[in-house]
């Protein structure tokens, strides 16, 4: 590789190189055109539809319609439930990723496969299965019933919706944290221990700061699908706990695509804002902990 650079460039080679560049541009072109046409342009359409009425005249009505107490409450509930689900995912997922990264490499491979397995399973059916588990005459209540307790009402509560979110998106928290943990240099841990850190110190001063980037990408990967879901709230919330995703879906079904676009735009802005907050924190932490 180095040799070819040191050689004075031959004329013939220059030609093939130019051809190579042309080929590269030619090969990337379909993807770029596709991306612009079906990713960038549609997002512009969201903004256009959000600010127009059915005759495509400019209007603020769709956006203003969103700022009613009822809809703002739905927005607040979506943010709240998604945040709770994200925090629970960190609490469950972080130790899980830590323990997996400590297993020997072959076991790690198997465990990661097992974490990924439910992810590839249709999430509608998985969510539905939770309905069966949490029902009033469901599995948990019949087990509790054996020792004479219950039945507890679990289905159609906010708690059930959170369980569904945590269940569906937990792997998205475990995987990025795990991948950061496996990259952690074990010599750092040894050095910390040698320099007199106890186990707790090693955890809080070495392992956690180094795995924060994984936690941050995990937060994104859990929070975004949680805040935008509509199926989980329909099934496990019994349709009583409308989320922002339900709002979009119901407007779409009512053939009111301008309103659906407006709510989508609001959702997109909320997600962008939370990403900005998250980036701010992650920059800080990197500056603070990692030299």
């Amino acid at each position, binding site marked *: 590789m180095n040799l070819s650079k040191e050689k004075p460039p031959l004329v013939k080679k220059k030609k093939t190189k130019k051809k190579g560049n042309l080929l590269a541009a030619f090969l990337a072109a*379909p993807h770029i055109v596709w991306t612009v046409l079906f*990713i960038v342009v549609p997002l512009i359409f969201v903004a256009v539809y959000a600010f127009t009425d059915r005759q495509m005249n400019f209007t603020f009505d769709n956006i203003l319609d969103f700022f009613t107490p009822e809809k703002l409450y739905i927005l607040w509930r979506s943010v709240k439930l998604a945040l709770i689900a994200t925090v629970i995912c960190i609490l469950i997922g972080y130790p899980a990723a830590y323990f997996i990264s400590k297993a020997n490499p072959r076991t790690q491979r198997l465990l990661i496969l097992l974490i990924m397995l439910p992810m590839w399973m249709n999430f509608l059916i998985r969510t539905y299965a939770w309905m069966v588990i949490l029902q009033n005459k469901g599995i948990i209540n019949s087990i509790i019933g054996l020792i004479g307790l219950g039945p507890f009402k679990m289905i159609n509560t906010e708690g059930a919706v959170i369980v569904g979110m945590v269940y569906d998106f937990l792997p998205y928290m475990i995987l990025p944290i795990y991948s950061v943990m496996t990259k952690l240099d074990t010599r750092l841990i040894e050095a910390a221990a040698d320099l007199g850190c106890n186990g707790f110190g090693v955890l809080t001063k070495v392992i956690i700061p180094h795995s924060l980037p994984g936690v941050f990408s995990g937060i994104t990967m859990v929070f975004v699908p949680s805040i935008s879901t509509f199926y989980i709230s329909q099934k496990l919330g019994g349709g009583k706990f409308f989320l922002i995703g339900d709002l979009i879906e119901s407007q779409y079904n009512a053939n009111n695509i301008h309103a659906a676009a407006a709510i989508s735009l609001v959702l997109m802005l909320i997600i962008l804002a939370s990403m900005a907050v998250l980036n701010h924190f992650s920059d800080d932490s990197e500056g603070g902990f990692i030299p």
Partner: protein
Amino acid sequence: MKNGKYRNRNGAVGIIYLVAVFIFLFAPIAVLIYFSFNSGKSTAVMEGFSLRWYEELFRDEITLGALKNTLILAVCSTLISTVVGTAAAYGISRMKKRYIKSLVMSATNIPLMNPDIITGISLMLLFVFAGTLIGLDPILSFRTLLISHVTFSLPYVVLSVLPKFRQMDRSLPEAALDLGCTPVQSFFKVELPEILPGVFTGAIMAFTLSLDDFVISYFTKGSDFQTLPILIYSMTKKTVTPKIYALATIIFITILLLLILSNVISAKDERKHINKLKKQRKTKKGENLN
């Protein structure tokens, strides 16, 4: 605290914790596999063991039709996104200008960051607008579904092939060119074999994502073309029989096989990579000694 502690495997706490997490992850799946063998109609009360719902599933033409549709769609979108994505990864890896590269990559990453519901809605708006403009009658159809599936699969293909181009020794294709290969020949004879594991991973991801997608399909589907996840959605809106569970069990086993396959491929690839590194290290050591 002993140094060795962190190198050791998990203690009892770790094992118990992981078992608990896996019970949580697999409980619903175990429940639905168990009830798929129910002889009764209930999805919550087990009456007896039977294969009745599997038989009914294979006699159900709507479900089989949806399965066929899903497979057609997945195969088509996988083919398109794998070819376009692999070509794009080649092009992107050779881009000279940094800002163009990062611009293309951030546009590529948008569907990964955006929630599915927004990807779905935005595509639907584009289709409705363009469809009314050129006067298509059913605006949403197989075509729009295919475009959507290619759109959300493309980033995954690009992202799994791109690192392979980066890992590859750049002098190899250069040598091929010097020895008289045309760029096309050098791609097929030198580069393609090197990146093939990445292409496979990308294709398998595209395929499974397409099979499993519900949200984006929900907003871009036509009434004439029903996929399995869409069918499952409409089934769970009514009363559910264990037939869905039988279907889920079959899907689960298929996915399991696919995952094992992709795992075997990537394990092989990794071993190859490690061997390569070992060889490099050996030659380096030799150089140092000299």
